[in-house]
C-alpha cells in the first residue's frame, strides 16, 4: 500500500534527523558488519587452509611410530631403538604387497642444520635425507635440473637439491648452480655435495604471518639422498614415512588397510604402535574448528543484532509519540489503521536495510584488512550479503511491528488533541 510514498516519506524523515538515524542504525551496522567480516575472513581462512593441505597432498597417508601409552609418571622414554622403527626391508615388503594402491612412498631422515659457505657468502640450511618419492608427496616444485632419483639413493651419491633462495644467496644468480660443488659446514665438520637440482621455495600458511627473517638468514631445506643421511644418523630405520595412494584409490579406505597392516606388524611390540593419519582427516578437523569459531562469533553478532533491533524499536516508539498529531491528522484525512501500520513498518525496514547495507560495506572493509593481515585472498560471498540484507529487513519488520501497531491503534481524537 502506497509503498513508494512510504519509502520516500521514510527517507525524508531519516534525512531530517541524520545523527539520530545513524545512531539508531549503529547496532544493525555493527551486527551485520561483524557477521560479514567474520564469515568472509572464515571463508578465506578455510580456503587457504584447504589449499595448503591439498598442496601437501590430500591423498597422502602418514605412517608414524608412536608409544602405545605414554607413561604419565616416567614420561616419554624418548630414545627409540632401530628394532622399534620401520626398516627399509619392511618398507619394501609393504610397497610390494600394495603395489596396486601405492603411488609413491616418501621417507626422510633429518640430518640437522648447517651453513653453506662460499667465501663471505653464506646460506642457512636444514638438511633432510629423502628418497625419490618425496618430490611428489611433498609437492616440491623444481626450477632447474632434476630431483634426487633412485640411483642417487641406492648409490649413496653426494647429490643435493637446494632452494632458489640458497642459489640466490650463494651464486647471486650469476653462475649456473647445476653441477657445482658446495661446502656444508655443520657442528661436526665440513662436507661437500654436488647440486643436481634447484626447487622453488614456498612459504606455507603455517610458517607465514610471523615470518620476519630476512631472505639472507632464511633457513631453507636441502634435500640429500636418504642413504647418505643414514650414514650419520643415530637410527638407520624410520620413525615415519608418507604414502601417496594412486589417484584411483580411495585414500580413506586405503588408510584403514595400511592401519591393519602395521597393526599386524606391531602386534608383538609392547611399547610402540603405528599411527596412520591422512591429510583428509586433518583437513576435516581444521575446517570444523574454523566452523566452530565462526558459529561462536555469529552468536555474538546475533546478540549485537538483537540489541540493534531493540534500539530500532525504541526509536520507532519515540517516533510514534513524536508524530502522534501527524498520525491523528492522517486518520482524520481517511487513513485506515493498516495504512498507518504499513507506514511505520516501512520506515523501520528502511532504517534496518540502510543500516544493513552500511554494515555489509563496513564488514567487507574489515574483512579486507583482516584477510590482508592473514595473507589470505579476499572472497566476497554474494549469498551472505543477500542473506544479511534480507535478515536486516526481517529485523525491521520484527522490531517495527509493535511500534507500528501502537501507532495504528491510536484514537484519532486523542491523537489530534496531543500536544
Amino acid at each position, binding site marked *: 500500500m502506497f509503498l513508494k510514498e512510504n519509502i520516500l*516519506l521514510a527517507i525524508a524523515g531519516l534525512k531530517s534527523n541524520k545523527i539520530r538515524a545513524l545512531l539508531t542504525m549503529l547496532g544493525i551496522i555493527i551486527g551485520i558488519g561483524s557477521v560479514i567480516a567474520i564469515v568472509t575472513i572464515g571463508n578465506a581462512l578455510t580456503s587457504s587452509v584447504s589449499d595448503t593441505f591439498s598442496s601437501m597432498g590430500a591423498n597422502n597417508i602418514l605412517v608414524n611410530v608412536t608409544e602405545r601409552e605414554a607413561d604419565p609418571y616416567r614420561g616419554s622414554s624418548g630414545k627409540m631403538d632401530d628394532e622399534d622403527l620401520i626398516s627399509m626391508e619392511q618398507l619394501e615388503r609393504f610397497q610390494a604387497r600394495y603395489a596396486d594402491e601405492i603411488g609413491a612412498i616418501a621417507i626422510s631422515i633429518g640430518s640437522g642444520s648447517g651453513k653453506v659457505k662460499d667465501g663471505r657468502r653464506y646460506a642457512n640450511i636444514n638438511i633432510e635425507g629423502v628418497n625419490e618419492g618425496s618430490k611428489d608427496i611433498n609437492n616440491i616444485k623444481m626450477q632447474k635440473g632434476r630431483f634426487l632419483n633412485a640411483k642417487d639413493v641406492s648409490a649413496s651419491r653426494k647429490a643435493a637439491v637446494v632452494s632458489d633462495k640458497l642459489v640466490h644467496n650463494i651464486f647471486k644468480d650469476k653462475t649456473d648452480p647445476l653441477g657445482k660443488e658446495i661446502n656444508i659446514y655443520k657442528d661436526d665438520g665440513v662436507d661437500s655435495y654436488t647440486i643436481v637440482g634447484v626447487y622453488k621455495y614456498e612459504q606455507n600458511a603455517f610458517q607465514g604471518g610471523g615470518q620476519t627473517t630476512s631472505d639472507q638468514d632464511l633457513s631453507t631445506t636441502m634435500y640429500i639422498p636418504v642413504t647418505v643421511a643414514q650414514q650419520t644418523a643415530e637410527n638407520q630405520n624410520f620413525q615415519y614415512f608418507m604414502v601417496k595412494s594412486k589417484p584411483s584409490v580411495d585414500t580413506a579406505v586405503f588408510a584403514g588397510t595400511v592401519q591393519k597392516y602395521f597393526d599386524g606388524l606391531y602386534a608383538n611390540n609392547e611399547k610402540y604402535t603405528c599411527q596412520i593419519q591422512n591429510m583428509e582427516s586433518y583437513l576435516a578437523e581444521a575446517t570444523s574448528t574454523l566452523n566452530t569459531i565462526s558459529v561462536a562469533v555469529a552468536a555474538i553478532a546475533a546478540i549485537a543484532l538483537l540489541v540493534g533491533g531493540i534500539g530500532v524499536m525504541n526509536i520507532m516508539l519515540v517516533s510514534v509519540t513524536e508524530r502522534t498529531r*501527524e498520525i491523528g491528522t492522517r486518520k*482524520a484525512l*481517511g*487513513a*485506515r*489503521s493498516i495504512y498507518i501500520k504499513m507506514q511505520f513498518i516501512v520506515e523501520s525496514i528502511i532504517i534496518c536495510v540502510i543500516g544493513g547495507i552500511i554494515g555489509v560495506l563496513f564488514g567487507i572493509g574489515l574483512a579486507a584488512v583482516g584477510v590482508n593481515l592473514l595473507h589470505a585472498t579476499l572472497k566476497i560471498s554474494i549469498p551472505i550479503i543477500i542473506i544479511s540484507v534480507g535478515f536486516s529487513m526481517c529485523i525491521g519488520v520484527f522490531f517495527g511491528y509493535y511500534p507500528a501497531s501502537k501507532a495504528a491503534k491510536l484514537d484519532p481524537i486523542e491523537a*489530534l488533541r496531543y500536544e
Partner: protein
Amino acid sequence: MSGKVIIDMQHINKNFYIGTPNELHIIKDMSLTVTEGAFVSIVGASGSGKSTLMNMVGVLDRPTSGDYILDGIPIAKMSDNDMSDVRNRKIGFVFQTYNLIPRSSALKNVELPMLYAGMDRKTRTKRAKELLDMVGMKDRMHHQPNELSGGQKQRVAIARALANDPAMILADEPTGALDSATGRMVMDLLHKVHKEGGKTIVLITHNRDLAAETERIVTIKDGMIVSDVSNKPQSEEKVEASCS
C-alpha cells in the same frame, strides 16, 4: 439550494464512562439537520459539548445512542475502517492548528486524501495543483509546512479539505491561531468555497462575530441546542470593508 440533507442527526446521546458510578452525559438527546449548500456555525463556550459534537459530526467518534446519517450513509454502528473511508470521501477537515504533515510539501499534503482514496498519481497531482491555484498557493506548492506562514498553511489546509470533493467542510476554529487580518483572509476563502463551490460548511467557533457571517447559527450549552436561528449573512460590503 436543493433540499438534500447532508447531516441528519436524530436523538444523539454521548456518554463518557470514568469508572462505573461516574457517567458523564455530554450530549443530551440532540437532533440536528443540515441541508446541502448551507453555511452553518456551531457556537458554544468551552465545556458546552461543542468538541464532542464536532467529533461526531466529523465521523471521528460514534454516538452512544441515536442515529446519524451523513449524506445518506448511516454512521452510528460503523467500523473504524468504514469511518476512515467516510471521513476520506465525505468530510474535509480544517483545523485550528492546520495539522499539515511535516516534511511533506504543500503539494504532497493536498495529494494525501486522494492518495488514501486510491487515486492514481497523475490525476491527484493535477487536481492538487488546481486546488492550490484556487487558494493562491500555486507558487509555493513545493514548500514544506515549516517554510509557510500561518495563513499560507491554512490555505493549503483548505485546499487539502477540498481534495476529494467532500459533502461538507468541517472547520474547527479555522482562524483561532491567526491574527485578525490573516483570519479575515481565511474566512473570505471559506466564503468563496461556499459561494463558488456550493460546498456545505460547518464552522465550529466560540467567536460570535465569525458566526454572524454564516447563514445559520446553532448555539450549544450543556450538551443541548439552546438556539438555532437563521441569520441573514452580513452584507458583502461589510465583509469587503473589513478585508481591506
